[in-house]
């Protein structure tokens, strides 16, 4: 069984500070209106009583990537280590992947007139570094790992995250603990 590199999102540690999202833009030099990693507020009453908790999402590097299946130009590549890469030079900006991805990951860049998405900073990984978002997280709430090694203590989804089974998302979550309001 091949490796499946993916992100672990620890919503128990995530404080919703957006550093990951900004570091990603900084490293990947993205247009102001493009974000490859986004911090979402989990709906406040998801767990009964209101609270403020967050999750940080980027590409889920799916086992069956809908983007790759829909792409007419084979611009997407699923690497042996599981990372889904978008080859910009092959992209013709047809937007089929934008339609197909259940997680809104590929984004159409109006200036480049092409699509782009998180590639798990594979060139940083290949150099032995962490992805920009991972290394910038002040609370170590995101990390990257071969998700085949993870057990059941890691959830495949959190409330608000679309069905991970559609495309076999490899993102794994650590559930937030919920504050008790006295």
């Amino acid at each position: 069984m091949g490796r499946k590199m993916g992100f672990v999102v620890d919503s128990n540690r995530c404080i919703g500070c957006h550093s990951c999202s900004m570091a990603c833009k900084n490293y990947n030099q993205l247009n102001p209106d493009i974000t490859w990693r986004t911090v979402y507020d989990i709906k406040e009453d998801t767990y009964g009583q209101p609270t403020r908790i967050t999750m940080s999402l980027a590409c889920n590097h799916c086992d069956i990537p809908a983007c790759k299946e829909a792409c007419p130009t084979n611009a997407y590549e699923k690497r042996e280590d599981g990372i889904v890469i978008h080859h910009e030079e092959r992209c013709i900006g047809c937007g089929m992947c934008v339609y197909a991805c259940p997680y809104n990951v590929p984004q159409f860049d109006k200036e480049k007139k092409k699509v782009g998405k998180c590639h798990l900073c594979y060139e940083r990984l290949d150099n032995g570094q962490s992805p920009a978002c991972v290394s910038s997280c002040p609370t170590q709430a995101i990390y990257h790992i071969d998700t085949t090694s993870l057990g059941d203590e890691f959830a495949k989804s959190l409330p608000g995250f679309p069905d991970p089974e559609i495309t076999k998302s490899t993102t794994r979550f650590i559930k937030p603990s919920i504050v008790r309001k006295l």
Partner: protein
Amino acid sequence: MMNLQSQISKEEAYEWKSKVYSILAAYYHNQLWNPKDLEAVVKVLEDYNHLYQLKMEDAIEVIKSTNLRHEEDCKFDFNKLFIGPYKLLAPPYESTYLNHDKLLMRAETLSVRSFYEKANIQVDGKGQIPDDHIALELEFIAFLLHQLNQENELTAIKALLEEFLNEHLGKWIDEHLDLVNKQAKTDYCKAWAIIIRRIIHLDLNRMTIS
């Protein structure tokens, strides 16, 4: 038209061009506010217009007829477009057009820098003033045109000049001037935009240099 141009030598043509680009550079260097200077500049532009049939008489007329009483408005307008302190309405930097970051000192700026270095030129205040400021790009073109008369490596300089025009200034000047045209409040700044566009377009794509 050919007739007119045939009346001057190649060397004179280069020198004319160099001076015209120097004028454009001086405009963006914020130096053309003295009425006397402006008067002389207008004469040169009129001749240049006549020589190459650039159809910019109307624009030159606007500049000519701009009187001192309105000059302040022109200056404030100019500042809002290119100087500050507000968010610039028409940033005069290449990278803010060609780089998707819309910031200064991007790859485009450094590429312009390396062009300058090829001609043993650098920005006075390198690292402080972005190399791709339009005044510097225009001045660089004026310098190369000037060099065409001074040096023997004609082909090399010509190639550099053409490449610079087509790879740099030519790539963003229209977008910049469109912005000027859209944002400028005074006819004065709009007239300059017309003049600059005509003059640069004349030389884009090897039209007149070779």
